[in-house]
């Protein structure tokens, strides 16, 4: 049962990833093409829908399915690149602090505490005010801010591993500290970090949606799912599909990531025991 659920999560992610990669080939229309004559057409399965626009159109007449598919690119890009950035920062800090202890660890802990005290929205506001909003800005902002869980988990696991005899043996063998951290410690702390990565990915995607909803994230006319929800909120009661479709897409993607992460954590635990 566990395996089915995990595989299901994996499939969802795969589908979204494929949609993101092949969006230009699969999307029926240009996601930016506006046609005010075709605005607010409902999805195909509702009254008034048409097969030309399977998911309907938005308030500017843009095809919703196309926007959804291109929006997948944004969500996946956010998810992947943010995790790479925050992972790199967090793991480096955590391993350094956990391995060296003492003052180095004090500095790392201080940095983590500072990071935890920073309100994300405020930073996003400031950054946007200074630099303007774009996909790159969002990725960098989130990547530079979302590393604390990586740091905490790397630090704790490094501290556990550091006292094991094989680390002492590696030091006695004359290995350099860099070698020990990269080749002796890191492979042994990877499993919980994979789980953290999936959690952070889901978090990053949701945060981007939230930021875009607030106007602090990806700028229009990019088809970020969060932005689509923001733009559709005025039509919530009469044309609910405008916010429901991107909302469901977000939910499904994050669900998939969480299911995969859960499954990975369980199977990695079982592998150990």
């Amino acid at each position, binding site marked *: 049962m566990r395996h089915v659920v995990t595989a299901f999560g994996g499939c969802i992610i795969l589908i979204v990833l494929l949609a993101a990669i092949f969006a230009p080939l699969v999307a029926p229309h240009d996601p930016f093409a506006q046609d005010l004559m075709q605005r607010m057409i409902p999805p195909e399965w509702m009254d008034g829908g048409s097969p030309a626009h399977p998911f309907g159109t938005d308030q500017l007449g843009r095809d919703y399915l196309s926007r959804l598919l291109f929006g997948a690119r944004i969500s996946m890009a956010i998810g992947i690149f943010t995790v790479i950035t925050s992972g790199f920062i967090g793991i480096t800090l955590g391993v350094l602090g956990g391995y060296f202890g003492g003052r180095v660890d004090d500095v790392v802990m201080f940095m983590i505490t500072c990071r935890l005290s920073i309100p994300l929205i405020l930073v996003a506001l400031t950054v946007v005010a200074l630099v303007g909003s774009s996909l790159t800005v969002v990725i960098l902002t989130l990547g530079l801010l979302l590393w604390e869980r990586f740091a905490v988990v790397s630090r704790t696991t490094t501290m556990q591993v550091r006292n094991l005899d094989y680390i002492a*043996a590696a030091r*006695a*063998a004359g290995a350099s500290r860099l070698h020990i951290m990269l080749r002796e410690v890191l492979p042994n702390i990877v499993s919980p970090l994979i789980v953290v990565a999936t959690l952070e990915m889901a978090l990053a995607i949701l945060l981007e949606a939230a930021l875009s909803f607030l106007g602090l994230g990806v700028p229009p006319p990019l088809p970020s799912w969060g932005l689509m929800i923001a733009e559709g909120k005025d039509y919530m009661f009469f044309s609910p599909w405008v916010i429901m479709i991107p909302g469901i897409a977000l939910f499904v993607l994050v669900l998939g990531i969480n299911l995969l992460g859960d499954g990975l954590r369980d199977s990695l635990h079982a592998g150990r025991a």
Partner: protein
Amino acid sequence: MTCVVELRDVRREFRAPQRVVHAVDGVSFTLAEGDVLGIVGESGCGKSTLARVILGLIPPTGGEVLVDGRSLASMDRRERARLIQPVFQDPFSSLNPRHRVRDIVRLPLAAQGDIPAAKQRDRVMQMLERVGISAEMAERRPAQLSGGQRQRVAIARALVLHPRIVVCDEPTSALDVSVQAQILNLLAELRRDLGLTYLFISHNLAVVEHIATDVAVMYLGRFVEQAPVDALFRDPRHPYTRALLASVLTPEPELGIPDVGLGESYPDPANIPPGCRFHPRCPMAEERCGREAPDGIVRHGRLVECLLA
């Protein structure tokens, strides 16, 4: 007689809030080439800390360690690795579970930085064969090996650089009895064949008697007795040594359990008693034992730190 290892009043403290733990509290000895110094002692005596200081893994807070006349602290990691290597107690945690056996044994060679890859491979396979690990097992990961096999791998790793000194910290304590002897026999053979010098730490007196040339008994951070092995076992002088020997339960059914007479208090390296550090537990203690410390008393060529010996 070349003196391979020399310790001069080595001390190591650990500071915790409101406590100072004197793990090693003034240890001095010399080891000649080919000697096996067996260090026996119970928990809290500091033998594992001493091992790590000698290996260069933690610096001493006092005194110095000399190898071949040179101070250990002055050597860089590579030079130190060429001279001293460890074999640890727990075969489950002394090998990196993510690496294959051949890579584990190759690490000391790779860390030297100047040995060509092909030569590394050859020496690894040679050493593995010597300790009884097949080429097929070399491709496996530690989880697929038994405790005895893992310990053999640990020995191969320790010897692959042909060090002068091997520090064995309870190398057989975590193994089954029937396997312990295999490993001990292997260690003895290798010592003869490769001309090694061992520091052999164990709480098992019989094992130490079998492999050591000299024995030191450690208590609360110091050697309280040190003598050649036969002399120590036949004629133990320090009350603690006698208590230790008396506590060993040999498989002789008629003898029952001995009353060692040590009392209930336990040794705490953060609270070393004044005077003779053993006096609170000593069945022979006199009043002056609580005042005078019997440091470094040598009698008849043997070290016995006891005012009454």
